[in-house]
């Protein structure tokens, strides 16, 4: 094991000093940030601009409106004007960034308030203008001379909604927080990032093993360590690199997210459930790392890789086909099938657990046993392939040869 750590240390050091690794390490979050911020830069400008809102206040609600604008933090600058409705229409055509709203008795009686907006004012202004409905409605009701009780009944209206009998069974005591889907999705997303990142660095194991073979270093290294130690060292080393990647990404990403959004990300992230999700992500890494290191040891020339090796390299992307069905029904039969196939289990579980409110612990348990048994088997097989493959110079191994090594 000590030798494995020496190999791991070397792989980490070698990559950390490699320019392309550093560049990808820093550029990936930069790209994400770019994709996140650039649309905001283009779309966000108008929102910040103050809109001059002119109100013909026949109804005497100007003060209420100003208060509302303040409460809702709208970018409105409210002016009171004496212009008639016709004049307002003409004025709106002239001014680009102004809105004219005639709050007249007539409008109140008709129940329709016209909004004259300038050319530059966004369509979304109308949604903001909906908030005028409440005070105007109140005004309508006031004019009807109804009792307070009657007013309340009318103001309340009638709504139809789904009864949540499940929560009632639990005594109806569930906190509102538990309904927040983000509470589950955030740890899930975190685990997914670990899985993604470690599978990507897992691909680097493939390159590393194949390079070792191509550059013919393997034999020198194997005069000091056993093939098993070399393989383990690579797996550990690239795992650390993958985790470093995650830490750097999150180190940059989390503060930005926390600053840009109001979500209590840190609070949601560090929950006990995260432990299981991270175990799943690590299990996924170990499985694919073992496959990659073994396949890497059978490939010397990447340009002439056979279909077989290419197919194996696609295995980590297998869970993609489950995304649709899982989002549709996280407890459906397809989701369940995906949970028991070792190659898809980590990603499928991360998706399912992010969506399911009640975790199916028995299913999780059985699936974990299957997954770890598969990891053990794959590691064993990888060891056998690696041992022979890494020293076979000059050609790529055929699937037939690999099959034979497995049983050697």
């Amino acid at each position: 094991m000590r030798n494995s750590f020496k190999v791991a240390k070397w792989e980490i050091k070698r990559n950390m000093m490699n320019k392309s690794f550093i560049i990808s390490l820093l550029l990936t979050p930069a790209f994400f940030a770019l994709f996140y911020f650039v649309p905001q830069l283009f779309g966000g400008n108008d929102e910040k601009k103050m809109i001059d809102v002119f109100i013909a206040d026949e109804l005497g609600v100007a003060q209420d409106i100003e208060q509302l604008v303040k409460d809702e933090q709208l970018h409105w600058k409210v002016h009171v004007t004496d212009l008639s409705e016709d004049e307002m229409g003409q004025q709106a055509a002239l001014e680009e960034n102004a809105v004219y709203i005639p709050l007249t008795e007539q409008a109140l009686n008709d129940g329709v308030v016209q909004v004259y907006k300038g050319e530059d004012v966004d369509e979304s202004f109308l949604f903001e203008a909906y908030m005028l409905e409440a005070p105007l409605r109140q005004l309508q009701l006031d004019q009807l001379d109804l009792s307070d009780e009657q007013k309340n009944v009318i103001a309340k209206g009638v709504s139809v909604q789904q009864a949540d009998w499940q929560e009632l069974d639990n005594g109806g005591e569930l906190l509102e927080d538990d309904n927040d889907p983000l509470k589950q999705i955030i740890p899930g997303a975190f685990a997914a990032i670990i899985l993604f990142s470690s599978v990507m660095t897992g691909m680097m194991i493939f390159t590393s093993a194949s390079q070792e073979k191509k550059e013919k270093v393997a034999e020198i290294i194997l005069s000091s360590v056993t093939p098993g130690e070399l393989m383990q060292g690579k797996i550990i080393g690239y795992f650390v690199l993958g985790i470093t990647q995650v830490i750097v990404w999150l180190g940059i990403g989390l503060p930005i997210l926390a600053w840009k959004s109001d979500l209590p990300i840190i609070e949601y992230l560090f929950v006990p459930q995260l432990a299981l999700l991270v175990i799943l992500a690590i299990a996924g890494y170990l499985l694919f790392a073992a496959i990659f290191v073994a396949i890497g040891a059978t490939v010397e020339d990447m340009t002439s890789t056979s279909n077989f090796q290419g197919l194996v390299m696609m295995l980590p992307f297998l869970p993609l086909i489950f995304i649709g069905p899982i989002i549709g029904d996280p407890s459906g039969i397809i989701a369940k099938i995906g949970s028991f196939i070792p190659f898809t289990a980590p990603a499928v579980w991360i998706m399912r657990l992010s969506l399911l409110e009640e975790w199916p612990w028995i299913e999780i348990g059985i699936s974990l046993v299957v997954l770890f048994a598969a990891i053990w088997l794959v590691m064993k097989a990888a060891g056998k392939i690696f041992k022979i493959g890494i020293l076979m110079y000059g050609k790529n191994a055929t699937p037939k040869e690999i099959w034979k090594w497995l049983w050697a």
Partner: protein
Amino acid sequence: METILTVEGLGKSFKERQIVKDISFNVKRGEIMAVLGPNGAGKSTTIRSIMGILYPDEGIVKFHQCEAGEIPRNKIGYLPEERGLYKNVKVMDMILYLAELKDYPIKKAKERALHYLAKLGLEGKEKVSVEELSKGMAQKVQFIGSIIHEPELLILDEPFSGLDPVSQEVFKSEIKELAQSGTAILLSSHQMNMVEEICDRLFMIHRGQRVIEGTMIDVKNEYANFKCTIRGENEAAVLERLSHVSRVEQKGDVSIVYLNQEVVVPQWLKQLPETLSIQELSIDRISLHEIFIDIATDRHIIKEESASHA
């Protein structure tokens, strides 16, 4: 001299084909032992079996400092035939990694690395990236990597191949020096002149089996007999009838007459018939090189020779 390594009855097959069969020899402290043989004879297979990189089907590899079946990796230096180094690392980092894998103290390794880099003409190259080195330079770096941890046993698979004559000389004197300081050295080579100059003992294999074994002096006495090269038109039958002749080879008007061990050269020259056509005549010993070629091309003089001595 203390024996460091013993190989006994080593055998290895790939598929149905026997690559090496019943190979036995030992390597002693302070001695240079050569494993010789043409391409595909089984030299690298033998060496890889010793290093535990291949598992022999039969036979024993015993390192005398430790228990049977155990390979004292930290006490062995190994320069494989298939040479390579990580490309995108600095020379010093590469050497220190190899030292670290052998559990050798890093500080001492650094000093030794600088010493050897200077000695092999690579002074100031420690911070250069490996990919910038020429083939010969890279081979020197690998050589340093294999001796950085002061191994008790140094195994060199074709150490001279791919080197220019100057570097060959440097390697030769370095290997000699290591042996003098007590390192047991096992090397394989094609270059007979090199082997002749530095080895104490040799072991020649062909088709996976031993053909010649012994100290350099014994082998030379036994096999490096005289041969007489004559230019002129002569019939082979006439030459074969001369005394002490074991074999005659003819190519155009050049005849090579191989003489056996008992020959006394002046006497033999005296009894040459006057009817022989001689444009040129020379007498010299069969070199190790010729013995090697002989074996590689299956001309069997060795068998004849050894049969006549048996």
